[in-house]
């Protein structure tokens, strides 16, 4: 047993991250009202430094800290870099919005940093309590961020729903943890795997416990039937926070699920094969319902919420296909997470940009966008095509990779269902594209021109958003046509958890 101070340096990035967050909070106190923008740059610079730091310090590490509570391996490094990169992108995306529409800018960035810290720890944790704490760190930050525009009724409502449902879900998760604990007496993933493998009696307590832990996770990723909060919260939350919810928190939850499943469930191979199908059913229900319900949506945020539910279904299909002898599925899931995040980032960045100009968020408001904002329209269109899974964008390649993995594990029906659901998805994505490119510009309530009402529509989007959109779109295409570098990284990451 190693002392607590053992290898503490390997956690430097986490400490530094916490420090950075506090620094932002502290700086916030001193900066005058007009200069709060600086905080965004400080956060971004900090994150950039931390990315470099993590890469330099933790490259090729494969250590387990605190008696196996935390893992510092290439899997966690991959997600750490990914999350921090996402953090930078989210900050870039939200800067305008935060500056013009939110009060208390400093706390926003500080909370964002804390949530990233939570995400990083989620990807590292190999023990249920640690995972739970990290999860709550992320959730609490998000609760606050969701309720950020505190005078808006919608925001209030979504925050209340989020926290109530979230609290119940963490109670259920904890109850599951307690059940597993009371039967197996362990909380570490690898020990759970051992326990599951050798336990011969099928005591309901143990397996119900496992099931309830799953519920907690499924809530986080908003899988059916634990998805109902998502559309409401997405709709009510401030736009950048919606984006963050859709991209960041989901990816973090999946990082946790990946590690939990591949270290805690899959090694008990025979058992895993018995109840693998649970994931399959969840996946099937999620992808179908998400895509179907999205068909009737008019509000863009709600639409994207349901769309993300659908995508969660696809990723869950990948989780179903996790196996002890092939890393195809975990590669696929990670590739999908990255690709989906990049794509969604582009979509949200474009929508936020539009929202900054007009403050509108309905689908029909996008009418004629291609005429007065061709760049925005192109990026949004590409993003939507990518979400729909069409080449040359990453959406196609990642789906192909993931579904191949699913089919390879014998779940061809699930892959088929996933492909079918993406067809349904195509319809509503195309509907949005129809508004952007085909429908004429909307006229205001009194028949006045939208352009007159919103003169900002004729101006270019802000530089930060253009940066995000440009790099995001380029990344979307690049990952779509040449994903090899990313796949190489992912392979080394998934080796850390699979074999």
């Amino acid at each position, binding site marked *: 047993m190693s002392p607590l101070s053992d290898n503490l340096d390997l956690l430097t990035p986490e400490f530094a991250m916490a420090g950075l967050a506090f620094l932002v909070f502290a700086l916030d106190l001193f900066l005058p009202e007009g200069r709060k923008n600086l905080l965004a740059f400080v956060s971004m610079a900090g994150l950039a430094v931390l990315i470099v730091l993590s890469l330099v310090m933790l490259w090729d590490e494969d250590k387990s800290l605190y008696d196996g509570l935390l893992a510092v391996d290439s899997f966690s490094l991959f997600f750490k870099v990914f999350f921090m990169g996402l953090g930078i992108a989210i900050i870039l995306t939200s800067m305008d919005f935060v500056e013009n529409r939110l009060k208390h800018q400093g706390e926003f960035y500080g909370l964002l940093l804390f949530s990233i810290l939570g995400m990083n720890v989620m990807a590292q944790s190999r023990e249920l309590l640690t995972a739970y704490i990290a999860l709550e760190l992320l959730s609490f930050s998000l609760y606050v961020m969701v309720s950020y525009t505190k005078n808006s009724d919608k925001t209030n409502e979504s925050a*209340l*729903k989020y926290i*109530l*449902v979230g609290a*119940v*879900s963490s109670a*259920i998760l904890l109850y599951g943890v307690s059940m597993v604990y009371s039967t197996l007496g362990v909380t570490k993933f690898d020990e759970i795997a051992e326990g599951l493998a050798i336990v011969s009696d*099928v005591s*309901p307590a143990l*397996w*119900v*416990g*496992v*099931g*309830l832990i*799953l*519920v907690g996770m*499924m*809530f986080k990723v908003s899988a*059916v*039937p*634990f998805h*109902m*909060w998502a*559309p*409401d919260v997405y709709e009510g939350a401030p736009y950048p926070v919606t984006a963050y919810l859709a991209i960041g928190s989901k990816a973090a939850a999946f990082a946790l699920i990946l590690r939990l499943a591949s270290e805690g469930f899959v090694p008990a191979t025979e*058992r895993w094969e*018995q*109840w693998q*199908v*649970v994931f399959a*059913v*969840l996946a099937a229900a999620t992808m179908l*319902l998400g*895509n*179907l*319900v*999205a*068909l*009737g*949506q008019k509000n863009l945020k709600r639409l994207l919420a*349901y769309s993300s539910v659908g995508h969660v279904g696809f990723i869950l299909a990948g989780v179903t296909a996790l196996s002890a002898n092939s890393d195809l599925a975990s590669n696929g899931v990670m590739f999908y997470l990255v690709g989906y995040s990049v794509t969604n980032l582009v979509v949200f960045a474009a929508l936020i940009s539009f929202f900054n100009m007009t403050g509108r968020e309905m689908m029909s408001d996008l009418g004629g966008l291609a005429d007065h904002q061709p760049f925005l329209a192109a990026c949004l269109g590409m993003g939507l095509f990518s979400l729909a899974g069409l080449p040359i964008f990453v959406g196609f390649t990642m789906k192909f990779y993931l579904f191949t993995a699913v089919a390879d594990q014998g779940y061809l029906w699930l892959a088929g269902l996933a492909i079918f659901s993406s067809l*349904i998805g195509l*319809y509503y994505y195309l509907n949005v594209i129809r508004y952007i490119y085909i429908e004429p510009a909307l006229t205001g309530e009194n028949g006045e021109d939208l352009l007159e009402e919103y003169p900002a529509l004729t101006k270019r989007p802000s530089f930060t958003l253009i940066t995000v959109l440009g790099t995001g779109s380029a990344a979307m295409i690049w990952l779509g046509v040449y994903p090899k570098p990313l796949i190489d990284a992912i392979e080394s990451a998934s080796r850390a958890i699979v074999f």
Partner: protein
Amino acid sequence: MEWAWLIPVFSFASALLIVVFGRSLPSKGAFLSILAIALGFAGFWVVLISWMGADTTTSGCFTSENTHLLTCDYERTWFNAGAVGDVGSVSINWGILIDPLTIAVLGLVTFVALMVQIYSLAYMKGDTRFGWYFAIHSLFAAAMLTLVLADNFLLLYVAWELVGICSYLLIGFWHERSSAREAAKKAFIVTRIGDVGLLVGILLIWREVGTFSMLDAFEAVRTGAMSEGVTTVAALLLFLGAMGKSAQMPFHVWLPDAMEGPTPVSALIHAATMVIAGVYLVARAFPLFEAYDADALMVVSVVGLVTAFVAATIALVATDLKRILAYSTISHLGLMMLSLGAFGVTAAVFHMMAHGFSKALLFLGAGSVLHSTEFQETGEMGGLRKVMPITAILFSIGALSLGGIPILAGFWSKDEILIAVNEHHNVAFIVLTLFTAMLSALYMGRAMFLVFFGPLKEQNEHAHESPLPMTLPMLLLGILALGFGLISFNWPGNYGGFGTFIYFLHPHEFHFEIWLGAVSIVLAVASFIAAYLFYVKRSISLDTVRSNFAGILNVVENKYYFDEVYQWTIDRVVLVLSRLIAFFDRAIVNDIIVNGPADVTRKFGIALRLHVTGHVYSYILAMAIGSVGLALFVWWRVA
């Protein structure tokens, strides 16, 4: 003879040149067309002479086992279907087959085409699409010559379709007239129905024999490689094609309407050349028809006879000059078919040529009349011999020839037919044939007398004789109509008469069945006299005849209601079916089967979204139920 393929190529080249450069050529390229066909005519003589001088030692020549004639066959690969050398691959050839049948029809086509094109120079003068007219004429000549020369069924079919399209284009030449438009369409579509049979027949033969070569097919029939059933069916299918092209009942309806085209076109295509393609096809594929029990030939003769008779009756009551001629053409085509059906290949080909020259002459004469009077109804004419004497004389020669007046070409060929029918069929056939021949003389006389005799109408006094480019071709054709019959005799030297030039299996020395000849002469002369009495002297009242046969006449004047039946079929069956399918496609397949699931999915999605009620406790309820379900599910899977 190897170079005979150049004959159609001249005309092809001229067609192409006129289309591409026509506008900048003098006389819009008409001279090119005439030059090409003149070269073709010269080519015919070259071929004829070299065939005469050829024997089995000449390259490509041999004595056909089927016809016992010296036949020359030259072919080159056109394209390969399937890789060369593979099982099941086929090489498709361009090939020309030269035997007396080819040569005879070649002569007919090149000569009449040359005449008609020269005639057209004057006739079509000033037309806005003068160049276009000659381009299609050239194309037609080329295609027709290819048809005649082809040594395989595929090439024949190619040419067959090409002449069809030229006919379509020429009938619809004055497409501003809706009747011309409709007629063109009708002609093409009706013949196309026959073509289906032709193509199916060709493919059937191919399926059995494995090649498209006619000689191979005949060989297969002769050796019995092709079974009786298939041979008969194939022959009948080919005949279906022939019926379409040669306007046999019930596919004859297009030909009268085809008179909407310029008259020289009618002369060339719808009298002398294209319409004989069917007869040519049956003659060419005769080994298929006569094989085994020659069941197919029976069908051919019956169809021919019925056609000949029915068309003759209609011709008798038609009033439009060109339509009279058209029905006469149908009737004579029927006679040719009848002759073929009676094993009279020689007679059929002979009649084909005699009729070709005569009918071309008649049409050109009619064109001359039309050109000058601008009337087409015989009722508007009369006495024209006073203003256009040359035309009148030449037209009369043609009419007498077709009517079967001795020493004119038509007499000899008709006589051959009668002999063939008499030899191979029963009494009913010969009686009907004779009756048809009589009708033929009667309506020819009627046309001739109505147009050129009797009093000249005032409205036609300005009419005048046509210019030389029109009368000269008529004159040349007239000479042939007069004297062509002479080639049937055994002349001194090594020419033994037409029957030794073209025959099937064994040569027919010329002979003359006295009683048949006598009967036919009597009938023909009597008919002409009757016609004279009816239409010039008016000494026998037409009205009494009419009133006596009112019922029948009504049917005949309505052309036996063929057009009505077709119209009804198209309007009430084909078009209705088509609309039904189109409606089915839009309303059922598209709006229900395609849109339906999409709509249902979307509506289902819209309904499904109601499960997100907006109440937080219902979310938690769903979560609770989900938790219990999930936990139990996990447990159940494991247990």
